[in-house]
């Protein structure tokens, strides 16, 4: 079992998602469970509920998973993915209202220090304009 909150990056663009994950890896290292997904089910720009669910599984930690998203569709598809998770996991996944790149780096840094899911979310969301 991982003792650090996991991070999932969801962008409409696979390149943005992968690039953001690269930044997190370079700045925070490999101790934090991390997964990314981007692109719609047809291979275009967009997001896929199925792949978001898989990414949550890949970054799973019993301490929870924080999701960073770019635009509206990524947010609503992530919320849908959370609802479709097994019941015991649903309460331990949150979508952060934060900019995707800065939020992912800050959330991962906080997670690396052993913070709780709520602390990770709060730190990422401090970056959002009020």
């Amino acid at each position, binding site marked *: 079992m991982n003792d650090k909150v996991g991070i999932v990056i969801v962008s409409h663009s696979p390149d943005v998602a992968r690039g953001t994950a690269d930044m997190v890896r370079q700045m925070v290292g490999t101790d934090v469970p991390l997964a990314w997904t981007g692109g719609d*089910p*047809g291979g*275009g720009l967009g*997001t896929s509920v*199925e792949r978001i669910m898989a990414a949550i599984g890949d970054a799973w930690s019993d301490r929870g998973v924080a999701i960073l998203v770019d635009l509206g569709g990524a947010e609503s598809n992530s919320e*849908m993915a959370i609802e479709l998770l097994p019941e015991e996991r649903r309460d331990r996944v949150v979508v952060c209202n934060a900019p995707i790149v800065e939020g992912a780096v800050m959330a991962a840094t906080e997670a690396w220090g052993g913070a709780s899911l709520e602390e990770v979310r709060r730190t990422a969301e401090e970056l959002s304009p009020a």
Partner: protein
Amino acid sequence: MSDTLETLIKAVTSRIVAAADELTTLDQAIGDGDHGVNMKRGMEAVAAELPKIAAQAPGEALKAAGMQLVMKVGGASGPLYGTLFITLGKELPGPVDRAVAARAFARAIEAVRARGKSDRGQKTMLDVLMPVSDALSAGAPLAELRRIAAEAAAATVPMKAIRGRASFLGDRSIGHMDPGARSSLIMIEAVLDVLEAKA
């Protein structure tokens, strides 16, 4: 599943697929230009699964159709229309009369509203769905529902978008019909055509 529900699903899927280019053109004006492509992919997935979907009870069939949209659309409209159909399925497990349908439709729209964190007047699909739902609950005849849906979609043209990608455009979102309002109108017209042909 009843023959009527199967006919309804077929009508809705084929009309949306046929309107894909029109929806994309609308979305290029004020959105990210993918509404038609996304809805077409989702509806084609529903159509491909129709034999399997049609083998189920009505409530389960609607839920299965909604899940196809959730999984295959890939844009914000996937969870929104998916939620609409899934909630309809939950609310319509058995025999349907007008009162049951009206209540189920109202609850499904409530779920869409919660999913999109949106409301009437923000230039979205809700601006078509909510007035139609109100009229359905009030007992309006089918022809009147048709008129209300068309007027409601047209009424999104002068609105300023508050939600979604179009909201980034601010005042520049004014002057175009909302693509989600248009796709909702197309679905409602498809349903009304089937119901009127039966009546």
